[in-house]
């Protein structure tokens, strides 16, 4: 079975002035449907960079990202945007909701990407009920018309999860989704993500610093010096946990 998402020999370097600073130096990673993978690594190790590359928000300096075995580097900007919309859901540490929109509108935004105005207009009722159902599923049935500023951190992250999943992507990329939440709230958000992941058979890549959380995943990959070492849950190497902050 081919992985939903594959990274092959990805390198990424940033130009700071005249110097090239390598962040990723050849990363290989496979992500299968129904698989939960934890991505651990010190701050500044390049976890977010890798996530952006996998989610097609950025292009690698070298190497390939493949969806269903098809390389994506030759796709146009618009095609990449469409692929991202169809295949990937992002959840960020700082929620990244649009402050002018209500919870429901933020979620519905994810339904308005690949369709024209008229296309959306024809399916607006269905889209809306899907959005409401999604928000109900994340436990925000009572908060549909609240603006982000009127929601707590946990509620905001739930809205972000609902938005990431409304377009029914096959890959969920979460970048320290609980990093900004207290442990109790974090617990709820994690359980929610895991349950939806299981239900939808998602390929789930979770960036976290939390070893215990990582241990609940199927697989742990660690980032160090721009490369990753895969491992199964349980064989936690002591120096890695010491490096993580």
């Amino acid at each position, binding site marked *: 079975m081919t992985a939903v998402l594959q990274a092959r020999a990805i390198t990424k370097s940033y130009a700071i002035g005249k110097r090239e600073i390598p962040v990723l130096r050849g990363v290989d990673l496979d992500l299968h449907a129904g698989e939960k993978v934890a991505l651990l690594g010190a701050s500044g190790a390049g976890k977010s960079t890798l996530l952006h590359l996998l989610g097609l928000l950025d292009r690698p300096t070298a190497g390939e990202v493949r969806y269903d075995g098809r390389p994506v580097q030759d796709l146009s900007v*618009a095609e990449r945007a469409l692929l991202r919309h169809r295949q990937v859901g992002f959840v960020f540490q700082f929620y990244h909701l649009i402050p*002018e929109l209500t919870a429901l509108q933020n979620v519905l935004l994810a339904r308005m990407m690949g369709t024209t105005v008229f296309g959306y207009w024809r399916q607006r009722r269905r889209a809306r009920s899907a959005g409401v159902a999604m928000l109900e599923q994340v436990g925000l049935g009572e908060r549909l018309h609240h603006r982000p500023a009127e929601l707590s951190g946990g509620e905001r992250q739930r809205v972000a999860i609902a938005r990431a999943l409304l377009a029914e992507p096959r890959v969920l990329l979460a970048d320290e989704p609980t990093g900004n939440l207290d442990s109790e709230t974090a617990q709820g958000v994690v359980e929610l993500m895991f349950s939806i992941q299981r239900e939808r058979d998602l390929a789930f890549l979770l960036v976290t610093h939390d070893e215990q959380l990582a241990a609940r995943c199927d697989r742990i990959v660690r980032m160090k010096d721009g490369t990753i070492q895969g491992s199964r849950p349980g064989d936690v190497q002591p120096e890695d946990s010491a490096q993580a902050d």
Partner: protein
Amino acid sequence: MTPAFAPFLAWRYLLTRRINILGVCGVAFAVWAMLVVDGVFSGFVTDIHEDVRRSSPPLLLTDLPHDTDYEPLRKVLEADRDVIATAPRLRQHGMVMPFSPRDRGRRPAGSEQLEFDHTRNGFALLLGIDPDRERRIVDFGAWLDGGPAAIARYGGIRPRATAPVQDDPERRRRLQVDDEQEWRARRRAGLPAEDDPADHRSIWPGMLLGWPRVFRLDWVQKGDPFEVLVAAFPRHHAGGPLLRPCSERFAFAGWFGTGHRMFDELTALVPIDTLRQMLGESEFDEDYVELVTDVAIRPRDGLSPADLRALQRRLRAAAQAVLSPDCAPCSVLDWRQQNTTLLAAVDQEHSLMQIVLFVVMLVSAFVIYATLHMMVVQKIKDIGIVAAVGGSPRGIGTVFLLTGTIIAVLGTGLGVLAGVLSAMWLNPINEWIYRISGGRLELFPRALFDLQGIPCHLEPSWIVTVSAFAILLAVTVAFVPARRAARMHPVTALSFE
């Protein structure tokens, strides 16, 4: 293809960001100003054009040699199938002074030669006409109605001064007043007169003055004598003086107003025969010619501009053939060409003002640019978010382009509405301001322009032009921030603090 999120986000941004009201107001104000100010200006211009047109014959044969005879010209001009009528005209500068023996020794009204105002210094353009012929060229009735109407506007009360209509064509031709009117005028002026008015036969040729001159001479009555002085180079001076002055007594026969202020101030209409005699033409001379400086021409109605041009060329050629072969070329001018200087000045001012309004429009476009630019900067994070959810760069750019467009469309709509409403209510509002300020304040001093109300011509084509221009300008200007947003790197945008 516009993705659905673009109009959705554009609309939400517009509703939630107060600053955009500024852009809408800016566009609305610019459009309003463009419509109303230009509407009023166009109104003035149209009125001026109408007045100038009313004061001018449709076509005028001019630039003729100074000894031109009317009759041969009339024959060739009226032979043209497109000419309905012609009328002879003789222009001569002169002095017009009210004659009043009582004022002898005191300062007569015509002595103020240093006055800038022609109606005071007595200077006049004498226009010799044949009333019966002239009537067929210009709207003489409107001229005669216009005089009292204009004076009434300035608070003077005058009876309607119709042209002296006499049964005798000879008297009509001389614009003579009634016997009794002249008799009374003689009595008032202390001039010799029969005891019984029935015995009197009027002899003075009549003169019609422009209403501003009559307005100055506020005691003048119909029949009152005026002294008219001309000085001319006679055609045949036979050893006499080269420059020959000649004065003649006229009866004040009425007043006129064409609405063309300069014409009304300057012109005195006199019988053409009398003026010819004053210039030394005598019917009893062997080489008498019906002297004219111009010939007024009425062409057939409904000629297309091209036909009219062709007619002008034809008439000019025909007239030139009649004139002596070595004389300078004559011209046939339409009413615009007769008044090029004034009309060009007015049109020039009109375009200047449109440029000023255009600048107002540019400023409002700049407001849109500034608000959108600010919005892009403030919404950098949103740009990253939308990209992460799957928004294409083109769609993201469209959000900002659409915001600018909606601002422009709303502003234009409001501006057009306000413009049309205030054009409709301009005069009532002006009245109201005039009333509540106790007559001290007025939007437009109507009296200054000889107008009954503020003219406002709002051409639908102008509304369409302004609207299209405003929207186009706003969209063009919105394009810059929109492109900036579209080109923003999603990761940079997401991590922007």
